[in-house]
């Protein structure tokens, strides 16, 4: 038996955990194993945890502007460690413009306010499948 493993967490001083908990529950209900790391993560702790947990996908929930700084750092750190783990970003504060710049910097998928959960789920599933053999 096997399952998709997704790391879900919040970066920096952002204390808004509600979105992260909601997405964690949704992914669990879709049959995935969610490694939930809560708030106050840094790019370093996320990368290290993703290795320890053999995560297929990293999901970052953000409800403060801090992601603008942390996300590029996270992407760089993954590259630096030669880790090919796709990162999905979601949060109400993300504007269209910033979403485009995040994608340009290597974030695999971005979901701003008004995003449909089903789309997030589909995105995580297809990104995880990209990384698997049968």
């Amino acid at each position, binding site marked *: *038996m*096997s*399952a*998709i*493993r997704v790391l879900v967490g919040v970066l920096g001083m952002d204390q808004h955990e509600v979105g992260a908990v909601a997405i*964690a*529950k949704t*992914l*669990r*209900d*879709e*049959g*995935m*194993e*969610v*490694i*939930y*790391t*809560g708030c*106050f993560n840094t790019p*370093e*702790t996320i990368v*290290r*945890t993703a*290795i*320890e*947990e*053999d995560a*297929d996908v990293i999901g970052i929930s953000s409800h403060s502007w801090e992601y603008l700084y942390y996300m590029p750092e996270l992407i760089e750190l993954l590259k630096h460690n030669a880790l090919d783990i796709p990162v999905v970003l979601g949060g109400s504060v993300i504007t269209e413009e910033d979403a485009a710049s995040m994608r340009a910097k290597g974030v695999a998928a971005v979901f701003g306010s008004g995003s449909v959960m089903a789309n997030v789920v589909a995105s995580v599933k297809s990104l*995880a*499948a990209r*990384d*698997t*053999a*049968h």
Partner: protein
Amino acid sequence: MTPRIDASIDALVAGTLAGDLRSASRLIRLIDDGAPAAWQAQKRLFSHIGKALVIGITGPPGAGKSTLTDCLIARARRDGKSVGVLAVDPSSPISGGAILGDRIRMNRFALDDAVFIRSLASRGHFGGITPATRGAIRVMDAMGKDVILVETVGVGQDEVDIARLAHTTIVVAVPGLGDDVQAMKAGILEVGDLFVVNKADRPDADETVGYLQNVFRRTPAGEWRRPVLKAQALHHKGIDEIWQAIAEHAVYRHSAAPALKARQRANCEIELRSFLRQGLQQALLRKLDAEPGILEAVADIVAGKSDIYAVTDEILGKLRFGEEREEEARAENVVLRPG
């Protein structure tokens, strides 16, 4: 969905033995997913294990197992020991998914290179741990972790499985002589080597300690008398005493080695039988999957040309698995034939 094995088994084994986190982590994944490659890898690791001290931490939901695990990591690190943690959380019986959140309480070690924390989902298994737990312990052992802490699912009653894997099993209880402690009587009292009444900052801790001590009062001389200790994991209190009791238990285990041989043999037999059962099951299922006549047989049954019982016997016979059934049937006939 087992990840692509981008490293060969050779590389994963060599990496694990050299203490490489990524190799060990991927190997645990393959074991957890039951990948055939994992078997070969484990076979090769087997001669390199047996050095780690394995400590089980069990008890009812919310008792403070993860918080205590965090304190024990800190204590082991103070002695300069490297630490592996396996934290098991329940899978949803409906979706099969899980939220694995124990490691949040151990976040202060997220960047400590000597600490490797891995979350496991119970994946439908009862008994507090998972079939992959033993394999994961062995991987951590082979990579050189000195101490391995295993936090079970918080189910409170039947986590007997952990006692088979751990050198020392800690049962975490909370103050109050309520249902939790009463329910513990069932199976958990026998599996615990050491009892911790956590959240001792709350009232009634002494009563709970007294209650548990009373249970173990009549331990015969020469047997391990289970210590009952108070702790406040949240405030890092009582941890040295627990560490000390673990050390004393190790001394006891060595002195009682001959007596514990029977337990060791029983545990080994359980594991060997379960491996053999798995192997047989897989081999037979592979044969069955390769059986070409099934769809045809279904058509015949539905068309009323043959009956499902006869077809079952016929297919099992072809798989050379029918002999026993026929013998059983003959035996039944003998009994059923009116005398």
